[in-house]
């Protein structure tokens, strides 16, 4: 079963690789991944869709939370959350099926973003299963080309974000005794 993980992380070089590295090191293939800046430009929000064996799930989330660049990793699979995806597709539409295609698009709430003699470019958003259906239906009209945006999700529960405060460091010389393994 696909697991949706939402991660708030620092917008830094290599941060994405640290998160995905935890998955690839365990041999998991990432089904979908989206990442973009948050309101705070120093942070990014990442949503990963990946099928993890149940016994490793908690462990992996803990490991993600351990990463220095990760502020919070949350498993949204079994908690109230909304997941959406964007699909862009090109449909070849000969004269006789143009109306039918537009009708279907309307049913799924898709928008026409480009229209040519050959066909349409459509944009649709929705939950993943609904988009799967939409794609299946459009395929029945002939050749299509699809680009999926990957799942994005938002938790419906407010999660307390605990951040570490700054740590005094380095200023005084000769204070090496106190950092013998214990902070």
């Amino acid at each position: 079963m696909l697991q949706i993980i939402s991660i708030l992380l620092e917008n830094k070089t290599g941060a994405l690789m640290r998160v995905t590295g935890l998955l690839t090191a365990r041999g998991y293939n990432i089904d979908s991944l989206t990442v973009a800046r948050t309101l705070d430009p120093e942070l990014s929000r990442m949503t990963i869709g990946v099928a993890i064996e149940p016994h490793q799930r908690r462990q992996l989330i803990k490991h993600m939370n351990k990463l220095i660049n990760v502020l919070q990793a949350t498993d949204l699979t079994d908690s109230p959350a909304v997941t959406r995806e964007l699909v862009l597709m090109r449909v070849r539409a000969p004269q006789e099926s143009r109306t039918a295609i537009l009708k279907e698009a309307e049913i799924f709430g898709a928008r026409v973003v480009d229209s040519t003699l050959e066909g349409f470019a459509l944009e649709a958003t929705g939950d993943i299963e609904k988009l799967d259906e939409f794609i299946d239906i459009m395929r029945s009209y002939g050749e299509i080309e699809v680009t999926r945006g990957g799942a994005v999700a938002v938790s419906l529960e407010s999660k307390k974000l605990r951040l570490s405060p700054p740590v005094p460091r380095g200023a005084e010389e000769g204070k090496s005794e106190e950092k013998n393994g214990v902070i």
Partner: protein
Amino acid sequence: MSQLMSGAKILLECLAREGVDTIFGYPGGVTLPLYDAMYDNPIRHILVRHEQNAAFAAQGYSRSTGKVGVCCATSGPGATNLVTGLVDAMMDSIPVVALTGQVTAKLIGSDAFQEADTFGITRSATKHNYLVKNVNELPQVIHEAFYIAASGRPGPVLVDITKDVFQGNAHYTPVTSIHLPGYKVYTEGHTGQIRRAAQMMLEAERPMIYAGGGIVLSNASAELRELVELVDAPTVCTLMGLGTLGSEHPNFISMPGMHGSYAANMGMYGTDLIIALGVRFDDRVTGRLNAFAPHARIIHVDIDPAEISKIRNADLPIVGDLKRVLPKINAVLKELLPEVGERPGLKAWWKQVREWKAEHPLRYDTADDVIKPQHLMREIDRLTKGEAIVCSDVGQHQMWAAQLIRFNEPRLWINSGGLGSMGFGLPSALGAQVANPNQLVIAICGDGGFQMSIPELATLFNFGLPVKVIVMNNGYLGMVRQWQELFYANRLSQVTLDGFPDPVQLAGAYGFKGRTVERPSELAEALATAFADPGPYLLNVKVAPTENVFPMVPAGGAINEMVLTPPQPAELRK
């Protein structure tokens, strides 16, 4: 107040502020500016003979002192050579900061000479790593690196620095604070859980304390000892935890696991409460998991939340620093103990444990014609009295040393526990000796691991480091041979090590003394002579070639079904 300084000088200034007195390293093209700055800097640089050994030596320095070890290598091959040492530090949670040079920033990605993607290669080999391309970021990054390496669950941190950063100038202002918003360190432990843990400990009839490397890392030996005496539970120390409870302590019942003592493993099987402190339920300890401590509830204290319930579900988890948590548990125990009356269950449990201990002590047969490896360890034990720093390589000798040498204190037993890196013994002893110039430091190696780090004999000589290198020479890759004998019908494949160099000539060529002993009657005198020598010493001890380590829990076996004596091969193979 700021000062215009080169990146190389800024780096050394930051190291000084972190209290660094020693760097183990090897120079190269892109670190030239750094080494030029080191030329007249008070920080001592120990020039090793291979970068892997720089990382191992930094670990020896750290493991023996608790301070952060520092190693340094150039770009490309220098950095890739560090990797084994970093993964090793990662597995055993040893605080090490590795500094590597990188090609000039604008050349990155151009397949420049000695370029490698060090940042990418070492990502999973470190707790955290950095690539510094801007000299202004350098001070912040260095202080972050040391903080991350030493705090929480310690580990290696690598800082990859481009050549132009070393060369570039910046206005240097000392860093006064660092901010890592996502780095969470939990130290205190949950008060309610602590109270419940103390109650569980006193309610248990057959408690067992399982203490590991976490006690060493958090310097909580004294607190452990108090807990052991308050609960009065039999205590096992893992391979990484040896010395945290002195080997002479009456509650100490040796090491558990694959080559653990009978009493330790039977105890771990029969207990109704495991008090796990700074351990990670390693497969070498638990054996077959579904047969591990089947009747026990688990209290698990660890600073790393990801260790809790990783292998075995914790009935009562406490996330925190043992140094902080144990005194709190001890305080509750002291408060509760007066109300607890007789503990008849515990009395019976101790009787049982003592019986196990008496039934199958760690014993071996001596011989007159050939030195038994166990005899060698016993002699080292007799002469060092649990006070020497013993750095072990990996293999049979490591297990015999762990079984038979006493350690009165933590940080005396230094070995590659998690990764099991051959070649670790000699360079880690080198690092430990640098940090403890007046202490007896022994490297116990097999003839295999020793030959992986022979070049460091030169370093011992160069820096006048009086490490006593004891090679337990059985002419085999002994542990692999043991498994081939027991599980592969004695088809000995690629385990014979012929052509061991003559130690007198070898050590002599490096400028110090070497010797071979073969007869049991000479052993005690040979060891005493080596230990008394003011310089480094190479002692090649030829031991019974086909001796096997027992007790042994075969891979995938249950810990209560250990094999105590040499069996018939067929018996084990079923």
